C-alpha cells in the first residue's frame, strides 16, 4: 500500500477512536463519580474508583433529600411515561393500520397532516398546549402531562409504514371472505403481525417521554414533577453551583451525579437491551427531538 493511502487510513482510525472517547468518556465518568466522596471527586483523578461506602453515603444523601423526594419524582416519571405509553399504543397502532390498509374519506388529508405534525419538534407546541390547558384549568393535573405525551404522530407514521410494507391487503381480504368482522381482522390477523412495530413505537414513546423536560416543567412543578424536572431542582440545592442558596438541605456533587444516573437508568437499560436493533438503522428517522 502506498504511504499516502496508509496515512489516510491511519487518520480515519484516529478520528474514529477520538470520537469513541468523546462519546463514552462522560458516561464512564458518570458511572464512577457516585462512588466517591466530595473530597475524592475534587482531588482524585477523574477515572479512579471510590469505595462502596462512598456510594452508600451518596445513596443515603440523595434518598434522604426531602424525605425521599427522588422516589416521588421517579414514580411520577414512571407513571407519566407508562400511562402515556399505553394510551399511545392504543390510539396509534389502530390509526396507522387504518391509514395503511383501509380506505375512508379524509385518509390522505389525515396522512399529510400526520407527516407535517410529526416533523415539528414537540417543544414547539409546549407553550401553545400550556396556554390551551390553562384555559380549561387542567394545568397541574397529571392529565396535563399524560394526554400531550400520548399524542405521538411519529408512532402513527411508523405503524403506517410497517403495515403498508409488511402486511398485504390480500391477507386481510382472505380473512374478510371467511366472514371475519373488521374488528376481528384487526385483532386476529393484523395485531399478531405487528409485534415489531409495537416494540418500536413503544421504545420511542417511552424514552422520549421519560426524557422530556419542557412540557412537564411548565405543567406540573414541585412534588408532581417527573425526575427530569426534579433533577434540575436538585441542582439549585448544590452549594458548588449555587453558593448563595440558603436552603437548609443541600446536595453534594457526588449525590447529584448519582441523581443524574438515577434519572437515566431506565432509558440506559432499555438502550442496552435494544442494542441490536438500535444500530442496524431500523431507527431511521427516529431521532426527532
Amino acid at each position: 500500500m502506498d504511504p499516502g493511502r496508509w496515512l489516510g487510513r491511519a487518520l480515519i482510525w484516529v478520528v474514529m477512536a477520538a470520537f469513541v472517547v468523546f462519546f463514552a468518556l462522560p458516561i464512564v465518568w458518570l458511572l464512577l463519580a457516585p462512588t466517591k466522596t466530595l473530597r475524592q471527586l475534587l482531588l482524585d483523578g477523574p477515572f479512579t474508583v471510590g469505595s462502596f461506602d462512598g456510594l452508600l453515603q451518596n445513596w443515603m444523601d440523595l434518598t434522604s433529600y426531602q424525605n425521599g423526594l427522588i422516589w416521588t419524582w421517579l414514580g411520577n416519571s414512571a407513571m407519566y411515561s407508562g400511562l402515556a405509553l399505553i394510551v399511545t399504543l392504543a390510539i396509534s397502532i389502530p390509526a396507522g393500520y387504518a391509514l395503511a390498509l383501509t380506505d375512508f374519506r379524509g385518509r390522505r388529508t389525515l396522512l399529510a397532516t400526520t407527516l407535517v405534525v410529526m416533523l415539528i419538534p414537540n417543544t414547539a407546541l409546549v407553550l401553545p398546549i400550556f396556554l390551551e390547558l390553562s384555559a380549561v384549568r387542567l394545568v397541574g393535573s397529571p392529565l396535563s402531562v399524560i394526554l400531550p405525551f400520548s399524542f405521538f404522530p411519529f408512532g402513527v407514521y411508523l405503524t403506517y409504514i410497517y403495515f403498508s410494507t409488511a402486511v398485504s391487503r390480500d391477507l386481510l381480504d382472505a380473512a374478510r371472505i371467511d366472514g371475519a368482522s373488521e374488528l376481528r381482522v384487526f385483532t386476529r390477523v393484523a395485531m399478531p403481525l405487528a409485534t415489531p412495530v409495537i416494540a418500536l413505537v413503544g421504545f420511542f414513546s417511552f424514552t422520549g417521554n421519560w426524557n422530556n423536560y419542557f412540557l412537564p416543567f411548565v405543567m406540573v412543578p414541585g412534588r408532581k414533577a417527573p425526575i427530569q424536572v426534579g433533577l434540575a431542582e436538585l441542582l439549585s440545592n448544590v452549594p458548588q453551583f449555587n453558593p448563595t442558596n440558603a436552603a437548609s438541605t443541600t446536595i453534594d456533587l457526588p449525590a447529584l451525579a448519582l441523581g443524574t444516573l438515577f434519572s437515566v437508568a431506565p432509558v440506559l437499560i432499555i438502550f442496552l437491551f435494544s442494542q441490536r436493533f438500535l444500530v442496524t438503522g431500523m431507527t431511521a428517522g427516529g431521532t426527532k427531538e
Partner: protein
Amino acid sequence: MGVAFVTPYTLFLLAFGALPTLYAIYLAFTKNNAFVGLDNFVRVVQDYRFMPAVGHVGLYLIVWLISLIVLVVLLALAVHGVRSRRLSTSVRFIYYIPGALAGASSVLLWLFVLDPSVSPVSGLLNLLGSDSFVNTIQIDRLPVVLAIIAFWTGAGGWIVIMYGALNNIPNEVMEAARIDGAGPIKTALFVQIPLLRKWISYMVILSLAAGTQLFVEPRVLSQASRGVVPQDYSLNQLAFLFAFKQNDFNGSAAISLLLLVVALGLSVFFVFRGGLFERD
C-alpha cells in the same frame, strides 16, 4: 370502518396539534379578548431581549449544523469502512448511547464535564483557558458549548441512520467505482455523499427546526451558573418568561407562533418537496 380506527388518534391530533395552534393564533392577535392586529408581535419583537435571543439561537444553529453535517457524514463513512462487523457494531453503539441521556440529564452531566474542578477533561479545559465553570460558559463560548452538548446527545442517532443509508447503496455501484479506479476519498465524494443527500437534508431540516426551539440546555445552565447564562438566552426561554414572569400570555403566544411558523414551514417544505409523501 377505517374511520373508527382513526377517530381516537384524530381527536388527539385536534386537541394537541390543531387546537393549541389555533388558540395560540387567537391569543397572538388579541389582547383582553379584543383584536389588536400585530400589536403583540410588534411588542415582543421590539422587546430589548428579542434580537439578542435571535442572535444567540442563530449563532448556535450555525455552529451546530455545520459540525453536525461535516462530522456525521465523516464518521458514518468511517464506520461504514470498518471491515470487522463486531467492531463496527460496537463503535456505532458507543456513538449512539448518549442518546439515552436527552433532556436535563445530559445537560447536568455536561455541567460536571465543563467544571474544571471535577471534569474528566480538566486538563483540556485549562488548556483552552478556562479555570472555572463560570469561565467555561462565558456567553461568547456558549454557542460552541451548546453545540457540543447537542452533538454529544444527538449525533449518534444520525450516524446510525447515515450508516444504514450507506448500506443501501447497491454493491454494483460501489464495485463500478472501484473498477473505474476511484479510491475511498473519490468514492465518498462522487458516489456515497451524493446518494446520502436526501438523508443529509432530512437531518438538517429536523435539526434546524429543533434547534430554533432551544430551551432546556440554556435553562439548566442558567440555573447552575448564577445567571452567567441569562434567563432569556433563547427565544423559547423568552416566551416562557412572558407567560410565567410577566403574565403576558398574548406576548408568549406571539413568540411561540413565530417559532411554530418556522418549524411548520420547514416541515411542510420537506414533506411535500422532499419526497416523504411519495410513499403513499
